């Protein structure tokens, strides 16, 4: 019997005032330093931006139904996909899991009362808001047309759109990531509960630690590259100006020094979430825990050395292409280890198909497809043919949307009872999860196909042969939109009408479940002590019927 799991459950729920009841005024939220409330503030903000970015891409997909365009000028089209990219990357995906679930769950997972620097945590949210207001200004002022990558010389010299406000928005929001990263690393180092050794940390905590390292070390380089673009655009300081001997490709080096690791900023937290979910819903210890940790660390470090694979056709030297190609293949190894270990975790598990598990299984499939197509693109000769085609678009969306957004939804559903104290409607959630998986594939499999056939990205006029694929893709996008809107409905409904969740509705291990739902301000009623490794589901799996208050429908392993 695992002390870690059962020692605190069930706790006396009536004693604790939940963090939600620690003040009901707007100010009590805007000036809060409670990591759980900051997580909620972040969740609301990034959700708003997710839907703004979603509207932008909805317009793009609508426009692409016709091969000759039908309601947008080329300029408007450029602005629509640019704002989609900027918002989704920096205002949704990068902060998505760390700033919401990381903020909420990480301190609880390691048994801490809060993050290391609570006021810095609040500051990071305000930095996000400041960056976000610049981006809203960009939207209102007519948008920006450089693509999310801000390549010079177009961005520094020729574009007539709001490049500088857009760059400032991204610059500022970058510092919100850095603040979060610094905070999380210090938290994991110094605030672990007694007995919570490094190799007893849940994998989500590990993923937060590694992603913080990546944020802290990569984001400043993006900030500087954007600063250089602004300096050139505003003051004519010619850093990337080829007419005086500057090199626009240097910008690409700096930009991708951040933006490739940024992919890992998006996917590492997703890996952390699904590790929790797989273990819980397969009632199994995560297979190869130590290797999962090493794989996270390896991805975090090697991920910094592969950025040049974005520049195979940019004028980079053949030798550099070779080096970056080789390193990119290397980074596939730890990713594959993770996929195999998740699969092995599921093997002979008592699998329950609740919504978090469905989303996580969707992640597993899509991440594998995204990763394997990434190998195509890491190979120089294939990439030369596929560069800037829809194959690339489909590849990175499979990782970033199929992977990260699936895991984001998995985490939202998994921790929803803890965050709100309520149960969501399981069947509605399962429907949404399935709709999202199908919608995603319907959107992006056609893009893989037409990309392979030669459809370039960022064009809204295209040969008629591609129309069937574009129409299918737009249909899939509509389905995805429904799948994204559904949770707003049933999760919102559950806030007021959902059943009370109880402390540990999933029968999960992990300290965050050994405290009331919603948790009290300082997270725990008694300071937690940890005496065992994480994921002791073998013990709990048998003891579960005693622990849970009522059987839950859809529980696959309930015999």
């Amino acid at each position, binding site marked *: 019997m695992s002390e870690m799991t059962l020692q605190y459950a069930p706790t006396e729920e009536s004693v604790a005032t939940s963090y939600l009841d620690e003040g009901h005024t707007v100010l009590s939220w805007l000036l809060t330093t409670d990591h759980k409330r900051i997580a909620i503030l972040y969740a609301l903000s990034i959700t708003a931006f997710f839907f703004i970015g979603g509207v932008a891409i909805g317009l793009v997909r609508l426009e692409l139904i016709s091969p000759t365009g039908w309601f947008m000028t080329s300029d408007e089209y450029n602005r629509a996909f640019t704002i989609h990219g900027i918002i989704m990357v920096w205002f949704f995906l990068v902060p998505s899991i760390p700033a919401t679930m990381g903020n909420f769950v990480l301190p609880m997972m390691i048994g801490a009362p809060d993050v290391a620097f609570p006021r810095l945590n609040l500051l990071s949210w305000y930095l996000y808001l400041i960056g976000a207001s610049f981006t809203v200004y960009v939207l209102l002022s007519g948008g920006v047309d450089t693509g999310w990558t801000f390549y010079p010389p177009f961005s520094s010299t020729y574009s007539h759109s709001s490049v500088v406000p857009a760059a400032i928005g991204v610059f500022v929001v970058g510092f919100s990531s850095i603040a979060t990263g610094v905070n999380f690393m210090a938290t994991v*180092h110094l605030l672990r509960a007694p007995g919570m050794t490094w190799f007893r940390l849940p994998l989500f905590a590990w993923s937060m630690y590694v992603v913080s390292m990546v944020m802290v*070390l990569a984001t400043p*380089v993006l900030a500087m590259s954007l600063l250089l673009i602004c300096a050139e655009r505003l003051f004519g300081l010619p850093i990337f100006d080829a007419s005086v001997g500057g090199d626009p*490709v*240097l910008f690409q*080096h700096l930009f991708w*020094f951040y933006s490739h690791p940024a992919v890992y900023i998006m996917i590492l937290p997703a890996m952390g979430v699904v590790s929790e979910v797989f273990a819980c819903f397969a009632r199994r210890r995560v297979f190869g825990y130590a290797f999962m940790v090493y794989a996270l660390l390896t991805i975090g470090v090697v991920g*910094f*050395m592969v*950025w*040049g694979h974005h*520049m195979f056709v940019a*004028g*980079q*030297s*053949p*030798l*550099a292409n070779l*080096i*970056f190609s080789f390193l990119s293949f290397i980074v596939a190894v730890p990713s594959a280890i993770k996929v195999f270990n998740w699969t092995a975790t599921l093997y002979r598990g008592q699998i329950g198909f609740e919504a978090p598990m469905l989303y996580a299984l969707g992640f597993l499939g899509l991440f594998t497809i995204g990763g394997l197509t990434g190998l195509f693109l890491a190979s120089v000769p294939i990439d030369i043919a596929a560069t800037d085609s829809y194959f690339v678009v489909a590849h990175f969306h499979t990782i970033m949307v199929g992977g990260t957004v699936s895991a984001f939804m998995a985490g939202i559903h998994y921790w929803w009872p803890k965050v709100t104290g309520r149960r969501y409607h399981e069947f509605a959630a399962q429907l949404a999860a399935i709709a999202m998986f199908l919608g995603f594939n319907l959107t992006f499999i056609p893009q893989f196909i037409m990309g392979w056939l030669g459809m370039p990205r960022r064009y809204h006029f295209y040969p008629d042969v591609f129309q069937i694929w574009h129409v299918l893709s737009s249909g899939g996008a509509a389905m995805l939109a429904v799948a994204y809107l559904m949770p707003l409905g049933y999760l919102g409904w559950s806030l007021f009408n959902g059943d009370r969740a109880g402390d540990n509705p999933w029968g999960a291990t992990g300290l965050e479940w050994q405290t009331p739902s919603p948790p009290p301000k300082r997270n725990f009623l008694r300071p937690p002590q940890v005496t065992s490794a994480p994921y002791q589901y073998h013990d709990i799996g048998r003891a579960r019927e005693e622990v849970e208050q009522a059987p839950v429908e859809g529980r696959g392993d309930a015999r």
Partner: protein
Amino acid sequence: MNGSSGDHETLWRGPLLAWSALLALAAISLGSAYLPLGAGNVAVNLVIAVVMAAVLAIFLMDLRNGTTLVRIVASTGLFWMIFMFVLTFSDYLSRG
């Protein structure tokens, strides 16, 4: 703890020594810059700068008494800077 003169002495001595060393190194660097060493100038200047940064980090930022963790963190930025330089130069130095 009181502010006795013994406290004051140990308080000032180390930093003053480090400060004098830094000023001396800066002066040497400045002087060497006027010698016609060709490419050697920048090498000398940079080596001196690295030594100065080390003196400052070890004695004034007190890495001397820092935990292993702090020392690792302090060197991390430098390692990542090396990644950046080596891989970026791998492109520039091998362009045709």
